[in-house]
């Protein structure tokens, strides 16, 4: 079973890697854009240097570090939301969806496998953000706890992917759901503390933000990278993320199962 899954996972990673590098200019621009965005975050952070902001206290008032980790890590959410939907839309457009649905694999396995390369690519970009931030702009992650960061990253990918899978079930049925992605991405970024700490929001919005996985992901990731928090110190956030994953993943997979059944009934598998 594990061999079967590994084989399929590898096939998707290889396919997507080959397709990505076949568009060389796009690949290079996606990589090189990281350095420009890191520079933008540095100078935005510079504007607020010396400004006393209580909400930034836990981050030693370093807005550059706060913003860089926030935006770079939110890429995981954006990519998770988009990758499942994109994968379905591409296979609908290219006509491969029927061929994939005809394979003996469960569609959920194929769908999850299709998100592996985007997650790996996002990890590469996240590492580059940290690398450029450290080497060029003086980001201090000397105390970082890599193990805790990896645990938070994996749990976050699971949570975000489960939401992406839910959205993809809507894509299967209704074909275009880009506005749903924008809406979820926008709401999560606003409440999750990407560009500013959630604590500056009105109390009722702070309460709502605690029900969003991104809030816990960003809080935990910043603490793991900037303050060196370990897994045990981050248990509340890890517990929250694990709970989100345990609840959302089965719901997402069930919705995909229903969606596949629906398109097989309606007969619009290859429509787009």
């Amino acid at each position, binding site marked *: 079973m594990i061999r079967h899954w590994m084989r399929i996972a590898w096939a998707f990673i290889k396919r997507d890697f080959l*397709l990505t590098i*076949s568009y060389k200019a796009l690949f290079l621009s996606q990589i090189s854009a990281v350095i420009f965005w890191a520079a933008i975050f540095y100078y935005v952070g510079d504007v607020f240097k010396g400004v006393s902001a209580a909400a930034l206290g836990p981050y030693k008032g370093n807005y550059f570090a706060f913003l860089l980790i926030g935006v770079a890590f939110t890429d995981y959410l954006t990519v998770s939301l988009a990758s499942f939907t994109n994968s379905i839309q591409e296979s609908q457009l*290219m006509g491969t969806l029927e*061929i994939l649905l005809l*394979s003996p694999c*469960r569609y959920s396995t*194929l769908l999850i496998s299709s998100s592996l390369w985007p997650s790996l690519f996002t990890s590469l970009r996240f590492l580059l953000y940290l690398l450029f931030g450290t080497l060029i702009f003086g980001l201090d992650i000397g105390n970082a706890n890599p193990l805790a960061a990896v645990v938070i990253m994996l749990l976050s990918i699971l949570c975000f992917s489960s939401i992406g899978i839910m959205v993809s079930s809507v894509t299967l049925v209704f*074909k275009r759901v880009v506005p749903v992605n924008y809406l979820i991405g926008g709401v999560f970024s606003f409440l999750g503390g990407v560009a500013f700490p959630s604590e500056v929001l009105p109390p009722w919005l702070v309460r709502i933000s605690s029900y969003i996985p991104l809030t816990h992901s960003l809080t935990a990731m910043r603490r793991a990278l900037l303050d060196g928090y370990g897994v045990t110190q981050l248990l509340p956030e890890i517990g929250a993320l694990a709970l989100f994953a345990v609840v959302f993943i089965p719901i997402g997979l069930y919705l995909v199962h229903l969606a596949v059944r629906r398109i*097989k009934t309606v*007969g619009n598998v290859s429509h787009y």
Partner: protein
Amino acid sequence: MTAIEAVNLTKIFSHQSGWTSLFARSPARRTVAVDQLSLQVEGGTIFGVLGPNGAGKTTFIKMICSLLLPTSGEARVFGHDVVRESALVRKAVGLVTSDERSFYWRLTGRQNMEFFASVYDLNMHLMRRRIEEVVEMLDLKEYIDRRFNEYSTGIKQKMAIARGLLSAPRLLVMDEPTKGLDPLARHSFLALMRDRIISTMKCTIIFCTNIPSEAEQVCDRIAIINHGRIIYSGTPEETDSATGRHCTYRIVVRGIEGPELSRLEGIPGVEACTCQHLKHGEYELALKLDASKPALSDALKFLGRDGCEIVKCARETADFDEMVRDLMHASREGPVRG
């Protein structure tokens, strides 16, 4: 062994989709694509599914491949129910479509094959062996390491067949595989099917087409579908007797005079008789008979009674395309079985 068994298979499409289908109160407009279709396909045969555009051929084969759920009725592929045991059905089926989009155009043929083979759960060793086998069988050696977007339509179609054969399926379903091919490519495709695929793979093949002569060339049995119903099922050779149309015999006779021959038209079932003088005392008759009446033996008895010698008697091969057209026209009166 029975490869496919369909009993009263029906598919009705509702023309309301998207958000409206969730809130609509009035019943949607419906199309009956496949209507109580029942058939059996024996294992190891090549079964042609013929019919005009919109007849329900693709809907039927998609239900067989478990890509579409039937509205009612049931179908089994090698004994597995297409709804309840769809994973087993999918494992047994290979699909060849005419849709060249269904490949990754920026990858090479080999990279495409490796990806689909993995999805079909072939391990690395088996995958490489199968790819080599199908490449060899379909003469794709020269092309397999080129990018898919460099291929001609004919090569793309061969790649589609190669993909369909990768998992060595027990049932190969070909949905209009010659669509878009020029006459030369179509001819070589059919030759390839006859000479290589059928003899090498030894699997059951469903060959779906709207060109009757293609089915006649490669299929053991055919079913003609129109408006979602089977209007004929049998061998291609039996089609003419099922049409109820006339058939023509060319008979060369000696020892009888022309005027006497005109009396043949009086025999029930003989629709027309034309006579051509070949050489001294030898005539060629073109006897047009009503296929539904056994008039040939009466005509031969008549000729024998008058003491003439029958030198040659041959049936003129009827045009298969025309016969299929006739069957489709006649389909309003009910199904015809060969």
